[in-house]
């Protein structure tokens, strides 16, 4: 969301900025259009937006029926429940009869329905389109539980009037609900560019290239780094971009680790650990294929 100066900030925003840096050489050449969860795919299908960077879970039916391409995951997430401590609920299996706030048209909505059906529990959904309105009704006690992607819940909790009074009950990560966020779009060339813009941030972190040292790294003798930064040409031409495309991304936006820590990491309000989103070399799931 935009900060007090009206500048858009966030992990997803930086993803879009990286794509702009790769294509135009300028991370600021991007126009953001805020959409609700319900509008997002239609807006993408109709060409109102070129790229959707949001926590959109890749599913088989979305990939096959919406006419969209999902690309590399830039955030591994899971669905969670947020609930007031006063209610004394320790495990998600005790939620029989609960009223649950959920966004319409999301995989979370379907997962919650699956979960309660699977555990033969009754529940009552409160479905409101706007995220902030939904969070308000939850804080006021209209629902017992708020369910969403864990990263979203961290955001909602950060703005709660009483964050300490809220907690995630045990067993709260729903099976099969891990929700990769990701860009989706249309032409093959554009698809490759978006894909590799995200991967470039991951690759840079693995190669130890940051926005601070990228200029020094241009002099590196490591052939992988030379190829990556376009010192030895090839990658840019293959994508139909300037050879400096990856350099521009790292210089203007940063590598994946920098972007993560800046927007959602432990030192931010959201305070999220790297966890699944650490590099594969550190026990996470973030992996980039070779840039050759």
């Amino acid at each position, binding site marked *: 969301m935009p900060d007090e100066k009206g500048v858009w900030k966030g992990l997803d925003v930086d993803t879009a900025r990286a794509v702009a840096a790769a294509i135009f050489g300028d991370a600021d050449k991007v126009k953001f259009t805020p959409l609700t969860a319900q509008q997002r795919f239609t807006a993408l299908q109709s060409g109102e937006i070129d790229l959707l960077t949001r926590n959109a879970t890749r599913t088989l039916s979305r990939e096959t029926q919406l006419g969209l391409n999902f690309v590399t995951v830039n955030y591994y997430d899971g669905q969670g429940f947020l609930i007031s401590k006063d209610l004394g609920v320790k495990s998600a299996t005790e939620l029989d009869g609960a009223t649950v706030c959920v966004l*319409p048209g999301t995989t979370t909505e379907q997962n919650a*329905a699956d979960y309660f059906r699977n555990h033969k529990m009754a529940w009552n959904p*409160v479905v409101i389109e706007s995220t902030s309105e939904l969070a308000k009704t939850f804080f006021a006690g209209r629902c017992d539980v708020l369910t969403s992607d864990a990263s979203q819940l961290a955001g909602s909790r950060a703005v709660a009037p009483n964050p300490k009074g809220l907690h995630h009950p045990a067993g709260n990560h729903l099976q099969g609900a891990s929700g990769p966020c990701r860009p989706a779009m249309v032409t093959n060339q554009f698809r490759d560019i978006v894909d590799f813009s995200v991967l470039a941030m991951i690759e840079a972190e693995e190669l130890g290239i940051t926005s601070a040292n990228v200029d020094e790294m241009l002099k590196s003798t490591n052939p992988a780094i030379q190829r990556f930064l376009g010192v030895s040409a090839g990658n840019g031409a293959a994508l139909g971009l300037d050879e400096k495309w990856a350099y521009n991304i790292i210089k203007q936006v940063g590598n994946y680790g920098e972007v993560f820590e800046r927007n959602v990491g432990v030192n931010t309000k959201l305070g999220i650990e790297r966890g699944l989103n650490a590099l594969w070399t550190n026990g996470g799931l973030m992996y980039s294929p070779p840039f050759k």
Partner: protein
Amino acid sequence: MNLSAIDGEFILKTAAPDKRHDQSAPTVPFWRDPDKRALVFQFVALVIVFAIGYYLFANTQANLARQSIATGFDFLGKEASFEIAESLIDYSAADSYARALVVGALNTIKVAFFGIILTIIFGTLIGIAKLSKNWLIAKISALFIEVMQNIPVLLQLFFWYAIFYEAFPKPRQALNPISGVFLCNRGLIFAIPEAHPAYPAMGLAFLVVLVFGYFFNRWGYRRQARTGKALPALRITVALAIVIPLLVWIAYGAPTGMNVPELKGFNFRGGLTVSPEFSALLLGLVLYTSAFVAEIVRAGIQAIGKGQIEAAMSIGLRPGRILQLVVLPQALRVIIPPLTSQMLNLTKNSTLAVAIGYADFVAVTNTTINQTGQAIEGVAIIMVVYLFFSLSTSLFMNWYNNRTALVER
């Protein structure tokens, strides 16, 4: 016939007396014959409309195919796999999209039905109050009308919804004004009679009395016209409508079992719940629309000449009879057509439900569009369904309008 045709006939007639041509019938080229010309124009217009329609359809089809977006209405039969908060029929996430859409449509009908009835009652009262000779009552209704008409209905909905969930306590601290009735931020929950065969039978008895009452009243009127003797048919019908279902109830052994709501875990179980979403939507729509209805009613009453009322008074009619026999029959003719459009507005405004989480038809269809990605089909369904709602409302109101219209004698 239009003007050009008359012109054409005129030209034709002036041309005919010209005797220099020895033809038996004057031959006019078709482009100078306005009737034929009109036919050609209409045909060309039709072809253009069809061509544009076909172009749009084919273009959309081709674009969807190119983007490999699924098309068609097959999705209706698939499992919806999302839950809907309130439903008039049995529904679970395992049911099909088609059934989910029916649930949404019924929810829209529910809010429109209660909304229209309450709006007419409340709007009429306010409209009459604005004409009151009592200064305070007249000014309060004028203020109400101004405030309600000038605040966007969406803001009003947010306001009422916020009141419902912010001002009322949580279920565990629910207000309990009378035994069996609870008020909390989950809505109004009250006890209802336990299901028993006596109740459907009572409903049937009530309907039978209503049908009987209709014909009884008509018979009463005709009898009065014939003999001059008035019959209190309405009062007899009302009495029967109360007594007969009561007798049926006693005949079934007077069941008194109640389904009392109970706080169990998170929520109340049992009883009947009126949700805050439904209440906020109904309240917002009724207050907003009744401000417009009040003005229509006021205008209708003021359209009746003062002389008529004075004339009625001079022959000794009581104020109630003046309203019933002189003012209302004439005022209704002025009131009904604009009232119809307010009823349609209320139905269409009910789509704002999506903002406050009431599962109306548009909310359910939007979710369906989002899950299946079939926006064109979804929007087409929305259009057809609302067209159906609007046309049926307006058919009914037109029928009623014709009934009350002035009969020239």
